[in-house]
């Protein structure tokens, strides 16, 4: 069982790592955001954003920031799960965890 769990975790991590590289093999075209913007500009010819304040991020900067959000999310999830399990053990010691 232990080996199966380990294999499943490694397999899941490899899958997650490999999936974003798929666009290098196949051209998926524009993302949803760009498609929406293009469609808006097709329906209302020449429509441009009327307000913009954020500087344009390079691909690297964007990648890093999204990765940071994911890391923050995972850290929060793991942290709160630990706290929940600890709280449960303290307040419901008889219950399986």
């Amino acid at each position, binding site marked *: 069982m232990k080996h199966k769990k380990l294999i499943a*975790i490694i397999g899941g*991590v490899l899958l*997650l*790592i490999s*999936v*974003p*590289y798929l*666009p290098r093999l196949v051209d*998926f*075209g524009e*993302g*949803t*955001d*760009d*498609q*929406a*913007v293009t*469609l*808006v500009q097709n*329906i*209302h010819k020449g*429509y441009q*954003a009327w*307000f*913009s*304040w*954020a500087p*344009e*991020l390079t*691909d690297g900067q*964007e*990648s*890093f*920031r*999204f*990765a*940071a*959000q*994911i*890391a923050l*999310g*995972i*850290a*929060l*999830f*793991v*942290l*709160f*799960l*630990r*706290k*929940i*399990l*600890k*709280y*449960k053990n303290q*307040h419901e010691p008889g*219950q*399986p*965890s």
Partner: protein
Amino acid sequence: MQKNYFTKGIAWGLCLCLLPQTGMAMHIAEGFLPPAWALSWHLIAWPFIIYSVYYLRKKSKQQLSDKLFMGLAGGFVFVLSALKLPSVAGSSSHLTGIAFGTLLVGSWPMVLIGLIVLLFQALLLAHGGLTTLGANVFSMAIAAPFVSYGLFLLMQKLRVKLPVNIFITAFLGDLITYVVTSGQLALAFPDGSGASGYALSFGKFAGMFAVTQLPLAVVEGILTTITLQYLIRRNTLPQDSLIAKYLRKA
């Protein structure tokens, strides 16, 4: 046991940090709603947000574990809303994680959690926007949680098995965000005059989103089901969560 889990969680986090990420948020981009519409959606969304804050303050005074589960839901939404996955028709799009949070802590907390995630992305990732925050909050953090909540209860009444119920709730909860976004864009950018103009525009936006999001909604359904099933097996659920109430009735 907890140490191992924590270590594995950190390992996952590091692996995901290494993924090349070009984020393409699902939200309406900055400045792409006309000012009148942007203001309208803000006026609609902010009463929900204010009540959500009041609700959370009231709830968190009752039990510490409620706060902890809200943190857990927030973490899940943070991860899923930033996880870039290539989709069939577009280069990337995102999941939401909203159904997971709704089934765990209810709809009202998800309004504030969704606002935090959207603000984070608007300010730090240049995705979504401040002018379009009201519209994005409405689609992702108001419509999706409340519809997901209702869907779960409906399927419970129809005696749908729990794992299937969770999957369908997460699947449709993900899609609702895009249906609402399509409606918001159609209202702002009708393709022609009269009702047919709105309908045509809605069809175009919804069709574009559907091709991209359908496979991702399946992924979200699977991830949500696996995660919630894990919490169920560990007997780790808030007592007043939809899932806990379902299990008590079963």
